[in-house]
């Protein structure tokens, strides 16, 4: 469904993505892991045309999003919902208005329909009671849930998550993991998750790709990923106290 074909990107004279090619199949939860500055978020931004490749193409189905402009780009972007790292909620709008914003701006729904849809999404994420609060009154985990409600309010085919558990305590992190997993099961969406949290990656991912130095060093299903012979992957696994056997069992706990 999402295809990167030989994507190269330099930022500030530094090679961030170096001829990266991969595919994200429809309906999967595709997790991109790597160290800080490895190019994970840059990869994500290419999927929604927030960055364009210096070389190569990014496709969403048959559409080449990396070359799209104007209304064509808007049409392609309407297939996505995005949860940004810091939730990126508009601070002067309350929770309800933040979630309602894409509906108000991009649809001709009546006020009643908007209210019904927004409350439905907020209820799905256990945030209905905070509808009148402002983002500054919410904890980091709650802001991410509101960000997620906004990401799914237009019923997108693809949801992108940029570091969904960063800065959160382990309990809230697992809660967010559970929400991502539920959304995949209930809405059948394709998810791309960028994270450096391997516990989270093993818990929710149907496929895990590791980027290092702008290149893909591993791209495998979780069972194969933790048994990878690649030295960078091994180091990454060990740094998070994940052993080849125990890790998988630990990671699978999230699947419940």
């Amino acid at each position, binding site marked *: 469904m999402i295809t990167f074909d030989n994507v190269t990107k330099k930022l500030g004279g530094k090679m961030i993505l170096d001829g990266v090619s991969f595919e994200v199949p429809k309906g999967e939860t595709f997790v991109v892991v790597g160290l800080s500055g490895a190019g994970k978020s840059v990869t994500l*931004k290419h999927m*929604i045309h*927030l960055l364009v490749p210096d070389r190569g193409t990014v496709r969403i189905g048959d559409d080449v999003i990396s070359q799209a402009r104007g209304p064509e780009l*808007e049409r392609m*972007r*309407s297939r*996505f919902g*995005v949860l*940004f*790292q*810091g939730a*990126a*909620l*508009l*601070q002067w709008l309350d929770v309800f208005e933040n979630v309602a*914003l*894409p509906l*108000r*701006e*991009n649809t001709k729904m009546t006020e009643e329909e908007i209210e019904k849809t927004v409350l439905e999404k907020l209820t799905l994420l256990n945030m209905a009671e905070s509808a009148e609060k402002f983002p500054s009154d919410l904890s980091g985990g709650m802001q991410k849930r509101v960000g997620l409600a*906004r990401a799914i309010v*237009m019923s997108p085919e693809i949801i992108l998550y940029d570091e969904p558990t960063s800065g959160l305590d382990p309990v809230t992190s697992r809660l967010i993991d559970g929400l991502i997993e539920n959304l995949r099961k209930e809405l059948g969406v394709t998810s791309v998750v960028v994270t450096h949290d391997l516990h989270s990656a093993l818990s929710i991912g149907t496929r895990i790709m590791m980027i290092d130095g702008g290149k893909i060093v591993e791209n495998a299903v979780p069972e194969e990923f933790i048994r990878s012979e690649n030295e960078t992957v091994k180091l990454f696994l060990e740094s998070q106290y994940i052993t080849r056997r125990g890790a998988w069992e630990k990671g699978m706990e999230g699947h419940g």
Partner: protein
Amino acid sequence: MSYMGLPLRSFRRLGRIILLACHGMGHALIILGSATLFIRTIWRPRARHETVAQLYITGIKSLGVISVVAVFTGMILALQTGLELRRYGQEEFIGSAVSISIIREMGPFMTGLIIAASVGSAIAAQLGTMAVSEEIAALEVMSINPNRFLVMPRLVALAIMLPVLTVYTNILGILGGGIVGATQLGVSFQAYLDNATRFAENKDLFVGLFKAFVFGIIIATVACYQGLSATEGAVGVGRATRQTVITSFLMILIVGYMITRLFYI
């Protein structure tokens, strides 16, 4: 090291600065053009609400500082001019001297500087914070054009409010001059007002208001461009705010001179 190295590097650096300036100016003009085209969407409920909010922030919230600056500008002008005119026994003419100076130049100029420093910097800081915290990216991904959603209401508010505030500055400035005339130069308030209105022409008022309108567009464009272009977290937001004030001040001075030259020479 080659003796040719240093001049070559300086030349290259100068070229890079010129290219960056051209790139920035082009980007700012694109933002201005795009926001201008979106004025047709101003009657949508959210755009209307946001524009009214910006009119309030720009107009009502700036009244305090503008009042103080306007009154004292008029008082200083009256005092300085009046003391010189008194040497020739012509102090009754301070009314026209103050009114023409304020209506033609000082009114729009002082209003522009105050709004650039207060509202312009606030716009740059707000949009800059939104840019570095990915809120602008979130808007783009939701197919919400930031030029329509954020820039257009601020552009309209500043373009409307600068002339309105300039009229207010003009009135208070002339009244301030009258107070000094009456209390310190022995010119009655009535005589001062008669003199102030006798020599000032409609053209002076309209050129002054035109300047204010252009200053409003300049401040909005510079502030929105700097804010939307902010990178590198809090440091970048600080840089955007500083650049907004500096660039707006310089452009107000230069464009103000050009408009004066256009209409009076």
